[in-house]
């Protein structure tokens, strides 16, 4: 993952641009602004977050005003407007998860990683935060990790241990999708 500061200029790779082009082709002539969300997802997958220079470049690319990108990036909670850990554990905190142990799970993760919600571990590997309902209530508690947003379901402390350890070793198992 590339690390960029909020002032450096961003140059999108030709591969990234060709992915953008594919997306823009899905909409009618002149409606390329529709590509904004999928493009921002690709930017975040590439850089780990969405910086102001990156947003400016997206505006250039889609031929819209930078403010149109900022207002969208700040509205949708999936976009990180500051650098995060390489792996962001997003734990569902809403009702159905909460009544079967999500609160405890978040406390456990906080203690295990040694950082508060939203912060980054010293090695730059991890962040965590509570998010609203992930539509996996029957497999609660649940968390997911971008950029592929794999779901980890029916969590308990042992599974969290295993997950974090395996991410540390970069030997993540294939995504389990239920």
């Amino acid at each position, binding site marked *: 993952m590339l690390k960029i500061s909020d002032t450096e200029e961003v140059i999108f790779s030709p591969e990234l641009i060709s992915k953008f082009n594919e997306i823009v082709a899905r909409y009618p002539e002149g409606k390329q602004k529709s590509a904004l969300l999928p493009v921002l997802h690709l930017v975040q997958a590439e850089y780990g977050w969405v910086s102001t220079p990156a947003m400016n470049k997206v505006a250039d690319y889609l031929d819209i005003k930078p403010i149109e990108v900022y207002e969208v990036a700040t509205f949708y909670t999936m*976009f990180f407007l500051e650098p995060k850990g390489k792996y962001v554990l997003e734990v569902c905190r809403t009702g159905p998860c909460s009544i079967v142990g999500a609160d405890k799970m978040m406390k456990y993760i906080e203690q295990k990683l040694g950082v508060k919600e939203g912060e980054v571990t010293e090695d730059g590997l991890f962040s965590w935060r509570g998010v609203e309902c992930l539509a996996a209530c029957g497999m609660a508690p649940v968390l997911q990790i971008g950029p592929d947003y794999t779901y980890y379901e029916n969590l308990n402390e042992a599974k969290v241990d295993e997950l974090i350890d395996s991410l540390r070793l970069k030997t993540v198992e294939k995504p389990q999708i239920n």
Partner: protein
Amino acid sequence: MGRKLLLEHINVPGINTFEVYRQKGGYRAVEKVLRAMSPEDVVEEVKKSGLRGRGGAGFPTGMKWSFLAKPEGKPRYLVCNGDESEPGTFKDRYLMTHIPHALIEGMIVSSFALGANTSYIYVRGEMMPQIRILEKAIAEAKNAGFLGKNILGSGFDLELYVQPGGGAYICGEETALIESLEGKRGNPRIKPPFPAISGLYNCPTVVNNVESIAATVPIINDGGEEYAKIGLGRSTGTKLISASGNLNKPGVYEIELGVSVEEFLYSEEYCGGIANGKRLKAVVAGGSSVPILPANLILKTVNNEPRLMTYESLADGGFASGTMLGSGGFIAYDEDQCIVRNTWNFSRFYHHESCGQCSPCREGTGWMEKVLHRLEYGHGKLSDIDLLVDVSKKIEGNTICPLGDAAAWPVASAIRHFRDEFEWHVTNPQEAVSRNYGLAHYADPLPKLENVAAS
């Protein structure tokens, strides 16, 4: 065993692939509509089926389709609502994960009925794995000639695309979804104009839930009349119920509308009863937005009739003693759960998800969250309880979109049915932070009609 129309083949290995789905009779509905039916015939069949929108509002799908404007020279759009963010609801994710071609086939049938040549499936961004699954399914269907130009030589063209959201419950509201698909913030539009007249890119647009669209497949295969024979009264067909909370077997179940709540909760075919041998305290029957009911009122109506899983029976008694089927997000709470905490949790959700356009919703949800937080953490006053009722009333009906109501109802209903538990939090602040109120009288025999109707 109830009949399964959507999940019949869910356990067949490889059913997520085109090949196996096709072997099991998949894409017959596309062949039927393209070879033997006109778009009007398809709309008629869906009308006959009595299918009601599965996204929450329950509006008849066939009728919605017949409202679509057809001005010359303007494209029409079908947009599938896969935003699925209502707490307690996870059926669309389940369907898209395990049997994606059911949605793709439904999209082709429905797009043909509406005369749409480009259709979008809007899926919440968190469901990136499902987005990949759908993209693969689309590629397979296209490869087999069921998408693209001149499908099956019928002259009908259709391109299908998946659009990711970005993490915002409000984008499930259909006009917010359209705004989002146009690359904007998910601010709901003021209606009218309705999407049927002016929706995506100001063109006539139909927005339908994933399950509604998938349901058109069995409707076409078996005929609308056959579909309407399943279910009870105006609640026709089958419905996916997302069951969660303190249950032995949480998960997604396809039910014939009309099974009793008791059977759904306790039978081995469905949820298998309350987990850990506990007793049931309360149920949210249709996703977080619908009124919560205590155990006694969810199992039976105030007239002592068994409560059934239908739009009508769940609503029996109005808001005084009833609730709604909503999106079918069925959350069960056992005797150890705290109603005040759950209400606070939900109000935090609505505050977090309010788009902020209307002051009653933006400010009111924040206020409710704050007051509920102090009640839950033992700093509340008795007057806070009426304050909450007051705030909820001021939000309800005074906002651009129904999120305001959706935020108000859980609070109002929790206080209506569990007021003693709220009061106990105020009068026993120490105890309230260290233990739960418990079951109290909520599972007692049914209250008398006059006691319930008063609030």
